[in-house]
């Protein structure tokens, strides 16, 4: 895959990595994280799969099979939240990263960083939850590691999981395949995970029935591939939410994306919580949803197949990749939102960890 250099430059990559220290901005799925990757990590660790900037790497094996390989580290606070915990999240997140490469998951690793003083009962609950999530996703944890750090040197429990899976022939989910006319389909209501975690955070705890959407996506992806055999790209809108996915794809594919504000699927409770906190749900995470870029001819079959499943009953088309439009040339890397009142404005890039405002 080739990367459109101009499109990447428009990602504000021109600015240098700021300051002489890592700040939280560098980890928040923002321009600062993109710069950290482009300017600090990639130049030192450069490889063809890394240059793909995908959720995982797809490696060709000598026999012709393709192996997907991904890793992710989970540092969620609190460890347990409505609808899940760090254990189930660490399985779902990695299984889903494999699924976003088109892979059927084969096996996971699990590395734990335990802080001195962590209650054993908490660890047991998290591991039970991890085991249940792995069983439900049809994958085994086959290797692992445990380290204990002094009190104060870790936040109770960090989990790393890596996963491998096989990519069936014919599946090519890559940003570079996204093209003008592609429809953008999401698998259901968004941002529930982000709001569920926020609702439990120290100092913010608010009463709500919102549970995380954390769930494995592999079986949904299989059904989607059967119904629509030529999906161009798949992403799960985790950190940074749908807004971050749209910006990443628009930049990596060198296309302009337009989304329809009225079509965005947010539960009323999620919208209400975001109104109260002054947050935009477009930038909050889901952990059991996916975003598909699909040719328009396949859109009806894809939607029908998704909606027939309990885990994607709310699937909906939210936008498309636009070409020349009313005499305007598309601008690579740009994301435009059609507002409910009929205007069109730019969707901003996420700026960092969402911060509730003063009043």
């Amino acid at each position, binding site marked *: 895959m080739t990367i459109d250099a101009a499109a990447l430059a428009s990602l504000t990559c021109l600015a240098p990595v700021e300051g002489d220290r890592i*700040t939280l901005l560098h980890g928040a799925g923002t321009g600062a994280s993109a710069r950290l990757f482009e300017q600090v990590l990639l130049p030192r660790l450069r490889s063809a799969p890394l240059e793909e900037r995908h959720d995982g790497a797809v490696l060709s094996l000598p026999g012709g099979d393709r192996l997907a390989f991904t890793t992710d580290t989970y540092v969620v606070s609190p460890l347990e939240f409505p609808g899940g915990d760090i254990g189930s999240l660490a399985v779902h997140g990695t299984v889903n990263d494999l699924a976003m490469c088109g892979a059927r998951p084969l096996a996971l690793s699990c590395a734990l960083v335990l802080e001195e003083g962590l209650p054993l009962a908490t660890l047991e609950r998290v591991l039970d939850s991890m085991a249940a999530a792995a069983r439900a996703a049809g994958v085994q944890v086959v290797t692992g590691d445990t380290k204990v750090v002094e009190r104060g040197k870790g936040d109770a429990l960090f989990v790393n999981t890596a996963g491998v899976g096989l990519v069936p022939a014919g599946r090519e989910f890559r940003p570079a395949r996204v093209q003008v006319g592609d429809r953008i389909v999401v698998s259901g209501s968004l941002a529930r995970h982000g709001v569920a975690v926020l609702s439990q955070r120290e*100092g913010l705890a608010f009463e709500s029935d919102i549970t995380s959407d954390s769930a494995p996506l592999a079986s949904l992806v299989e059904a989607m591939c059967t119904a629509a055999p030529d999906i161009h790209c798949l992403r799960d809108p985790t950190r940074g939410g749908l807004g971050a996915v749209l910006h990443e794809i628009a930049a990596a594919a060198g296309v302009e994306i337009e989304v329809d504000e009225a079509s965005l699927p947010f539960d009323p409770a999620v919208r209400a919580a975001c109104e109260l906190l002054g947050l935009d749900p477009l930038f909050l995470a889901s952990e059991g949803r996916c975003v598909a870029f699909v040719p328009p001819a396949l859109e009806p079959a894809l939607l029908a197949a998704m909606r027939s499943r309990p885990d994607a009953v709310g699937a909906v088309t939210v936008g498309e990749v636009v070409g020349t439009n009313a005499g305007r040339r598309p601008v690579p890397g740009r994301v435009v939102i059609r507002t409910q009142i009929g205007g069109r404005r*730019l969707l901003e890039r996420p700026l960092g960890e969402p911060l509730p405002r003063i009043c």
Partner: protein
Amino acid sequence: MKFVDEYRDPAAILALASRIRDEATQRWTLMEVCGGQTHAILASGLDSMIESAVELLHGPGCPVCVTPVETLDRAQALAALSDVMLCSFGDMLRVPGSNGNLFDARARGADVRVVYSPLDAVRLAAANPERRVVFLAVGFETTVPAVAAAVRHARARGLSNFWLLTSHVRVPPALAAILSAPETRIDAFLAAGHVCSIMGTQEYEPLVARYRVPIVATGFEPRDILEGVLLAVRQLERGQARVEIQYRRAVRPEGNPAARALVEEVFEIVDRPWRGIGVVSSGGLALRADWSAFDAERVFAELGEISALEPPECRAGDVLRGLLRPPACPEFGRGCTPERPLGAPMVSSEGACAAYYRYRPVDCLEASP
């Protein structure tokens, strides 16, 4: 969603915009005071819908924006003390001081916490008796009652490790300062509905009488704002100048008496410097003498004088007074972006520069490099 959807109904909004255009016989200049209103206006493109009838100038109602750099620097210096836990609203963390922001201070090891209510800071003080807890108290009259309640709560619990670094500001003196400036060309104000829900509207009567400008206490949803504009335009067309309330579901002329009494008990009116604007006479609130034991500036006198540095190319003061539209600033989107701001209005969720940057209409970008 109840109480939201009906105020965002596209049909109602389009109808109001059309009435404003029909009723205006000339183009009027209105200033919406609150940055929350500015964001709502730009998010929905309301300004362009009524462009032929009304020019909307954006006012100083962004508490984060008007907090002096000295206060931010002082907060950072306090946070750098090893036994201090500095608590603030999330909005304040990205605002640039002389030497980076509170995020940078945190990366250097400072204990900086985001809280959602001043009472959370009191809880942190109670839970961490070995730490000195300072709450960076910024905000207009809307936020002051909760801060007053927090201080009272801290005293009632007998806490001796909780202080305020205050930079509270008041709206009416700022409007007076803007109206008395020779370059002002404002025909009417949309006052900030949330401030009025606490303070009521009586404070605006002397301004209306003196400067003959209509002031309409207005809400924050698109329909509220266009209703406020319509009420103001009607007054102007009839040659009237009155205080009027559009935001009736939250605002009474007398405000919220309990909240006002709480503020009155703990705070007194003082002159205060506003970032970008200068000292506003009676423009701030400070702890009364009886409560000065909670004043961080007294207790942490060891910090001494703070000499603040502002980037000279930042024209936030002109933006805050409605004299410069953010996109007309030479640095807008070039030397100044939300990720690398020169001034607070580019990062605050109520800042006018941030609103323009965030909600640039599509054609605006095509014109820029």
